[in-house]
């Protein structure tokens, strides 16, 4: 019962976000970058549903365009981190021995830093733009993915069907790719959903600390960061992106929960 209600809520929230992002690709009520100095800091009205910002740009349009940027950034980051993390995790879990020890030592060293600050430093190096952000956050998250994947790989390695594969005469590499990898997907999928949320949070935190996707291109994070001075005088500026982030995270977390429930072997056995 709970599972279904929550999945539904999560699904609706995510559908809204993706819908807004997709719509923004070809239509927004106003040009999200269009400066209109005669309509600055307008409260929500029938014309500007969510009001306007300090440059007179339509907040609704920016929230929609921001959804697109945020979703793209989050997806790319998750892809990058998961891709590399899975690679590192599988390779170390597969090779064991010294390669494993060395790579895991590096991995642990990276894990020892607070991710957001690592991302901040990387971002200064590679530049504050969408791809810099993706690279920075991706790199910052790879170690945790690698850890999770390696742990999963190590536990799957001990499963009897892996032994069965060896008995059949399959090479270790084949066993890894054919048996270990597909079975490691489930925890990674759950991790990916949480990470999607972390990226949204991290992006806004980085914007807040002064580096993120640079405006004027809107993201929820930089909109939220830019709204700070107007926190009291123009509440809607911060509310719109803040609520968007919170609701999207809520949606993705709920979906992640139901995904986890579905992938739980106990549930699968009935």
């Amino acid at each position, binding site marked *: 019962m709970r599972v279904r209600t929550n999945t539904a809520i999560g699904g609706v929230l995510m559908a809204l976000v993706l819908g807004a992002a997709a719509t923004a690709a070809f239509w927004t009520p106003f040009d999200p970058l269009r*400066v209109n100095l005669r309509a600055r800091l307008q409260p929500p009205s029938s014309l500007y549903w969510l009001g306007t910002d*300090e*440059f007179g740009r339509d907040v609704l349009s920016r929230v929609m365009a921001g959804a697109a940027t945020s979703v793209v950034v989050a997806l790319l980051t998750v892809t990058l981190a998961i891709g590399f993390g899975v690679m590192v995790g599988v390779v170390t879990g597969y090779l064991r021995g010294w390669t494993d020890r060395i790579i895991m030592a590096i991995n642990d060293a990276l894990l020892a830093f607070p991710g957001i600050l690592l991302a901040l430093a990387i971002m200064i190096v590679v530049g*504050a733009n969408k791809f810099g952000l993706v690279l920075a956050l991706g790199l910052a998250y790879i170690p945790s993915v690698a850890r999770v994947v390696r742990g999963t790989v190590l536990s799957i390695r001990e499963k009897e069907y892996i032994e069965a594969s060896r008995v059949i005469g399959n090479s270790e590499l084949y066993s890894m790719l054919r048996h270990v990898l597909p079975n490691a997907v489930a925890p990674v999928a759950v991790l990916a959903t949480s990470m999607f949320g972390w990226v949204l949070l991290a992006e806004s935190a980085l914007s807040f600390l*002064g580096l993120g996707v640079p*405006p004027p291109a809107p993201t929820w994070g930089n909109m939220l960061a830019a709204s700070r*001075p*107007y926190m009291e*005088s123009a509440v809607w500026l911060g509310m719109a992106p803040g609520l968007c982030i919170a609701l999207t995270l809520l949606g993705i977390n709920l979906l992640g929960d139901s995904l986890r429930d579905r992938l739980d072997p106990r549930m699968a056995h009935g």
Partner: protein
Amino acid sequence: MHARRPSDLVVVGLALACLFVMPVRAAAETVLRTRLNADIRSTDPGTNRDANTDGVVAHLVEGLVAFREDTSVGPMLAESWSVSNEGKTYTFRLRQGVKFHNGATMTAEDVVWSLKRWLDPATQWRCLSEFGPSGIARIEKIEAADPQTVAVTLDQPTALFLPTLARPDCGQTAVIHRDSVGPDGKWIAPIGTGPFKLGEWKRGQHIDVIRFDGYASRSEPRSGYAGAKTAEVDRVRFNVIPDSSAAKAGLLSGSLDVISALGVPDLDDLKSRPEVQISVTPALGLTGILFQTRDPLLKDVRIRRAIALCLDTAEIADVVMQGTARANNSALPIGSPFYGEVQTHGYTQNIAEAKKLLVEAGYRGQPIKMIANKRYGFVFDSAVLVQAMAQGLGVNIEIEVLDWATQLDRYNRGDYQAMAFVYSARLDASLSFEMLMGPKATQPRKIWDNPEAQEMLRQSMMTDDTAKRQALFDEMHRRFIKDVPMIVLFNGAELAALRKNVKGYAGWLYPQPRFWGVSVQ
């Protein structure tokens, strides 16, 4: 964990309890609480410093001369001075009865000792290079003729000697007591002659300055860093609050009395508050768009001019500074005594002409990368507006946001196409041009590389003759506008928000708050 849980509960309980027991302030003492956005670097004037440091130290120490409100130089510890030896010897007559914070009376010996300390390379005085080979002049001799007289001899005449001595970033070439340093020459704490003496400095938290009761004030009214200085509060506390929203909140909740260097976005909000008054003062800083004139695309002056012509600088200044600053296309700040009718002629928006120039230059939508940073909100906002206006013309500007240090690095290396930048205040007209001008081949950070103009600049530095300098500056302005090495947008404003009970505060051209003559009721 088992051990910790109960203690946590105690902590919370007590914390809740103390919500109702707010800290009690000492009643007798008057304290003025203000904000710094970052901690000061040291208390050693003009050495290990930044703007915040200068601002605090200016309350503690004084030099022979100081800038007045109109950026002219007036006497401070000197009673008067005379220039002789073809403009090479300056003889300062000192004021009598000036006391150091430790009670000692200032003499010519102290002045000589202080000047010599600044000129010692080991001190790492920021302005030492001004008196080196590439500077304005060398100092050949410093001597105390009698306890009230000090003579300084230069190797060549310069109009900039006194302004340099007065520069706040040079620590106003402060006269300090020799006990400010230890026997090993290591800095201890400033024993100066200022209206306040140093109180408690808690790193990262606050710096207190305490009224110096033995202060001997000048008689003429307060003017810039010169004139009368009377401490009307017992203590000024500079709280280190990096976050501007928190500072604003602090002011509104009454835990701060003054926020200087107020951000423009906070202005709107604070203006409407009954408990708050706003002080707006034109400032000397300079915000504008720099062009790299060696860039393959932007070396074409027609493109630069086209961009300049498509801007409505008045509107940019108005929006970005929310009506607190006027547009200015001149390299000279509006507050400068040399800012005249000529300087008001800058760029006038002319879209048709701009379009024509672009066609002539063969511009076909090539992207122009403009560096900006978010450390200075008004610079960033200007960049956004310039981009938006240029877009209307069909010029494709892409904003690249860097952090301030990276942008400075790119600035110093000249590695950019365009950048939105802000210069700090220069208190002399020659210096306003000097910061922009120079040969790019040897000094890549320079913006405007025009040998004829550079010669005019050199002449302006050599002479004291106001009319002659005005003529030089006027001509330089015309060429500056014609060459478009950068588009100056505005000079900005010094904004401060004060609670209504703060009396006597006034900003001035130089963006540093002064808390002498300020009282809290």
